[in-house]
């Protein structure tokens, strides 16, 4: 399946990917409204790592054998058989953080106040995930590997 991969050699650390993710998962889908009025604001579902000049995004890989699905005690994580997308049902999530403990990429985000996690949904069938489209330097790509 097509997955989101990052290229650290050309990631410029602007974090527009995170903003695009937040806006895409907001109520309004409008950046200004999302940031100024939505409470709680969605969290970005990728992780941008920074260390000196090194920056890169880490994104959910929608694993073939997703450990987050295996460990979820609430049945909130499901791998969609057709699309391969690992989906998370926030309604069912109880915030046990088991998936946070197991995800080898560390890309399941905690929302401690809500006692829920948030994870990439590949923008629910969007032709190109928001983070990929927003990257100004092609440092995040969506492709088959």
């Amino acid at each position, binding site marked *: 399946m097509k997955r989101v991969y990052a290229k650290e050699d050309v990631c410029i650390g602007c974090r527009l990917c995170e903003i695009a993710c937040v806006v895409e998962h907001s109520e309004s889908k409008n950046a200004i409204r999302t940031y*100024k009025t939505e409470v709680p604001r969605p969290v970005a579902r990728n992780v941008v790592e920074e260390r*000196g*000049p090194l920056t890169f995004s880490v994104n959910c890989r929608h694993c073939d054998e997703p450990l987050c699905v295996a460990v979820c005690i609430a049945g909130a994580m499901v791998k969609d058989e057709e699309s391969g997308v690992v989906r998370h049902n926030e309604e069912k999530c109880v915030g046990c953080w088991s998936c946070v403990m197991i995800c080898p990429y560390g890309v399941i985000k905690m929302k401690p106040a809500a006692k829920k996690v948030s994870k990439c949904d590949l923008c629910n069938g969007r032709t190109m995930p928001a983070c990929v489209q927003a990257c100004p330097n092609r440092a995040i790509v969506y492709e088959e590997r």
Partner: protein
Amino acid sequence: MLYYDQNKNYRDFEVLRDENKCIQCQVCVRQCSYEVHTYDEKHDEVTADQTKCVGCHRCEAFCPTDALKIRKNQSEFRDNALWTPQYLKNIYKQADTGGVLLTGMGNSYPYPVYWDKMLLDASQVTNPSIDPLREPMELRTYLGAKPDAVEVHGGNGHPRLDTSFAPQIPIEYPILFSAMSYGSINLNIHVGLARAAEEMGTLYNTGEGGLHPTLYQYGKNTIVQCASGRFGVHTDYLNAGVAVEIKIGQGAKPGIGGHLPGEKIGPEISLTRMIPEGTDALSPAPHHDIYSIEDLRQLIYALKEATDYKKLVFVKIAAVHNSAAIASGMVRAGADVISLDGFRGGTGAAPTMIRDNVGVPIELALASVDERLRQEGIRNRASLVVAGGIRCSADVVKAIALGADAVYIATAALIAVGCTVCQRCYTGKCPWGIATNDPYLAKRINPEIAHEKLANLIRGWGHEIQEMLGGMGLNALESLRGNREKLRGVGLNETELNILGIKHAGA
């Protein structure tokens, strides 16, 4: 602003932030390498230190909510035709530092731009125009010395060429990427330039920074440069490309050398330039072995020997008052190609006074060099490539009509990959990731994107050149070369028209 020398507050730009749109995402904070923007966590507020803004527009370009605008500082000094704000600010700065004013890119003073005072011809009724979408249109150019005459024998439908040709470099577009050293710009751009040159069938030039090992694969699209510092020059390097360019001078700073500060000499640049890490890379003003045309001839032939007479030798000079005579000497010294760099040519760093006050407009230098070589009957013995402020395809066409074989572009190439000509290349903090080797900033150029954009630029200009040629009823660039009949001047005086060798519009 508090704690600054008062005159720093006479800043050039204003950062206008629309608080109704700013979402405190801090993209501007991360993008500005001059630390103009800062985030105040306590108040969840992004603020700007206007005095640091160089007007590069990086923040504006990256702001996801269109909250930023960069304007010229609206604060006005009293009108004075002589003491304009620019001179005032320069004096304040020097009174503070006692130093030489530095700048980057090319001469930015309002000297005449002769490209804008020449108009091209087009066919009407007679000699009908040609549609390049329907009919072949030849842009290929061969660089290199042409024989004085071509001798053939045989005939009867089977002619044979008796004349042996000097090596020629075919280029598919009359546009080369001119010299920018690895060091002044980074490897990512070099990769982009090399790949674009390869894709488009043209050439790029290493500048005097040597050739990074990863770039040898683009040899057939490479001109390697040999300049006064001789950085990175060795046998493999000289033989790596299709030509060697001896750089005598540069349009942005004729008569002076170059200086890449030691802090920019990191491990890769050190390796490529063959100098120790952290040492200043000083290019002397002259070549210490060239004090005459005869000396130049020695170097030209030394390089031809070193490359087994397979590579062309270019000689590059800045356009100066007596370029025509010098060019004649260069041709006689054995140069295969004359590179002529006008006063608008860019640089990574130059003293402002030199950049803005020395040299000759390329249009005039080109016309006089071409004319002189023709008068002397040696125009065929070298190709002529001109550089310095070529902004668009029409400039290229006008240059060819004035007599150039091809043009060099560098500023335009950098603009293609994001440069906004803020003229702060010498700081090493280029926010567009171009004139910098800071690993955090250099990543901003993705070689893949740079390659595409540079190739697109050449492609686009190529289409336009074909359109203009077709409009003039020509189907080959060769038919335009030196064809000054296709140009007319507007608003030029008799002297200018004479030097350019063109008639006034209407004539």
